[in-house]
């Protein structure tokens, strides 16, 4: 038996909503700030913004970003 027309419409709308929610989730994660240090031999470590080292790294990075200013216009 074919589905009722309003069911098709609801499915389509909820499909789009799911896609949008997934996009927003991915976007939020990719925009998350991070501080990552790499060591000789390929070892790496992440420092959360709420850790002492992480907070210091973000402050130091913020100062460098301030010095660099905006991107020069071509």
């Amino acid at each position: 038996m074919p589905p009722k027309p309003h069911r098709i419409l609801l499915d389509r709308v909820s499909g789009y909503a799911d896609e949008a929610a997934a996009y927003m989730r991915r976007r939020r994660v990719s925009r998350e700030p991070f501080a990552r240090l790499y060591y000789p031999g390929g070892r790496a470590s992440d420092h959360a913004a709420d850790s002492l080292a992480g907070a210091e790294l973000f402050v130091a990075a913020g100062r460098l970003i301030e010095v660099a200013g905006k991107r020069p216009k071509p």
Partner: protein
Amino acid sequence: MAQIETTVIQEARARDTTGILAEMADVEMNGVVSGEMAAGALAYLAEMSPDLRGGAILAGDGAVLAASGRPERWREDAAALLEVADRAGAEPAEQVHIATEQGEVFALRHAGLTAVAVTERFALASLFFFDMRSVLRDLAAGGDGRGADAA
């Protein structure tokens, strides 16, 4: 910081690339790098990386060889960043990558030199580190940072 699968994949790629680069032979400093050469190398880095906002190249003792304006501030702030990075681990960090809402900061120590750069958000980290490393390697070997492109 919470990690999810997509981040892990990115991290694995960066880690593997770092591992590959770590296996490449290091070039030792081949004498004194002039400010002029360092400035040329920084200009070349900016040419290669359209996301670059500004940067500096520092000697092993922390002196600024070239910077995109305000060398004194670059010296102080780069030293502060590297000092914090070194304190965060058991050994000195070779590369630093910090991403914030305002931009991204990269620092790389190689062959007795240090490069620090600030880019727009979402710059390609592996590629950027590769470019920084090749510029420092060429500078340390007595080149102008352009490597094979110099010819």
